[in-house]
């Protein structure tokens, strides 16, 4: 395990030091430390119930950590609400995406932050700007949208994720948290999303990529934080760990071997 300071890429954008979170007497997270750097991808790996969702909620300001410190640009921060995290440049793309299927792409892109033109009672949604910006921002991410007027519902799952990522980038995110962006997707679509994650990284964003799939995490990740039952099983830099080791640790290696033996035997043995 390396400490945060040895890794390349300058000072960390976001650093977690011994983060812990209790819900009543239940310890949901304990002693989580890792760092997120500009232009790097930090993968958070864990099985269901490992504490991935709680960690996202701590990072995005939904929950306050019970213990530990959250540092942004080396300064301790305390987010009381999701808006605080957003204002600090930490954008979260949730699994449900916060997009309205029946609305067009450009309307979704600017939803809640619509540009306006005109004055007084004639102040209106600047549709021309909205459409142009949507098209150019998506093009910058390498997303070719046939028509920004088409409803989001007609996009594939991968394309929707990509639009959500492009939106977060456009609205000034420095840290992008992606909650299981590939989990509901097929192999091809997941590959598309991984490419956009790499794009966001190359634009200088710090990316937190939450997943339970080491095959998705390993190709794009620069750091790997493994969670199991709310505890850290290690925080590795790329090169310190192979894909096979990640898979083993996630499944709890021995358990998988035992399962293989058990299933390999004919029934009744």
């Amino acid at each position: 395990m390396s400490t945060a300071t040895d890794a390349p890429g300058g000072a960390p954008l976001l650093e977690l030091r011994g983060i812990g979170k209790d819900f009543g007497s239940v310890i949901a997270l304990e002693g989580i430390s890792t760092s997120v750097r500009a232009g790097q991808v930090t993968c958070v790996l864990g099985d269901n119930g490992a504490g991935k969702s709680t960690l996202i909620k701590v990072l995005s300001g939904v929950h306050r950590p019970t213990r530990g410190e959250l540092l942004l640009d080396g300064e301790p921060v305390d987010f009381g609400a999701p808006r605080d995290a957003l204002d600090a440049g930490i954008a979260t793309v949730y699994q449900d995406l916060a997009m309205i299927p029946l609305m067009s792409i450009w309307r979704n892109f600017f939803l809640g932050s619509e540009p306006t033109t005109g004055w007084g009672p004639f102040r209106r949604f600047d549709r021309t700007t909205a459409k142009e910006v949507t098209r150019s921002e998506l093009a910058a991410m390498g997303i070719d949208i046939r028509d920004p007027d088409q409803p989001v519902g007609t996009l594939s799952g991968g394309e929707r994720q990509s639009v959500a990522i492009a939106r977060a980038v456009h609205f000034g995110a420095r840290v992008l948290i992606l909650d299981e962006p590939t989990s509901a997707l097929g192999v091809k679509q997941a590959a598309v999303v991984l490419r956009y994650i790499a794009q966001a990284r190359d634009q200088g964003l710090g990316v937190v990529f939450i997943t339970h799939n080491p095959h998705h995490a390993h190709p794009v990740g620069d750091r790997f934080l493994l969670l199991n039952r709310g505890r850290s099983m290690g925080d590795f830099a790329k090169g310190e760990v192979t894909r096979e080791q990640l898979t083993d640790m996630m499944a709890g290696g021995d358990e998988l071997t035992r399962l293989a033996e058990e299933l390999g035997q004919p029934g009744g043995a």
Partner: protein
Amino acid sequence: MANWLDVASVLGIMAVAVALLMIGGHFDLSAGVMTGTTALTVGIVAVELQQNIWVAIAAALVLALGIGAFNGWLVTRTGLPSFIITLGTFLMLQGLNLGLTKLFTGTVIVRGIADAPGYHSAELVLASTVDVFGQPFRIAVLWWLLVTAVASWVLLRTRFGNWVFATGGDEIASRNVGVPAQRTTIVLFMTTATAAWLVGSITAVRLTSVQANTGTGQELIYIVAAVIGGCLLTGGFGSAIGAALGALIFGMTQQGIVYLNWDADWFYFFLGAMLLLAVLTNRLVRRYAQAARR
């Protein structure tokens, strides 16, 4: 022609407002009876309290905005279906309309609005007749066009319009990205109330006497017109112009049956058939819109 446009205009003003609310994901069952409440308020304040008719119309507006805000506040505060909440206000207003009218007039009708001070200016604005190409048109048709144009502009060209679609499409998702969904809902309920006030004032000034049961039962007709015009019952989709056309189709059917000398009893059969046809078409549209492109 003037006749069915006349039917369509008063209905259309309400259908457009109800359509906005439906796009925003809610129903207002009190919209029909509220046209009665506002008309009766105009009558009672002008005749029984002997105020200038414009004062009476202003008082009705304040009352309507209050009822709309109450509906919206209760819906957003409790998270209960607006169907139930506004069913409650509908029944309460129905009772109030009857009870208060009897209390003030001793009968179930308010008469003599034409004698109120300022009536002629009010008639000019709300109930006059304009000749266009030799055809007499009620000025309500003009109000209907104006309401449709403004609603359409707000819906398609403003931030608020974007929020209406988003709130109706997915309230939680829209709140996640910073849309003031609760405020949007309350403003929408106040909009249907304002439309009810406009229709109520037109009714009171035009007829010069108002029955205590005015408007009761109309609320479903507004929803039917909005749905025929393409609004989804589930919210998030529809248009103001569609609702205006829905009202137009309604007016044409109603008067058409009369002109064809058919039995008017059949009217509701046609209305129901149109509603079913509209809902089935809507379903196709939504399937197209939600089908993922693979």
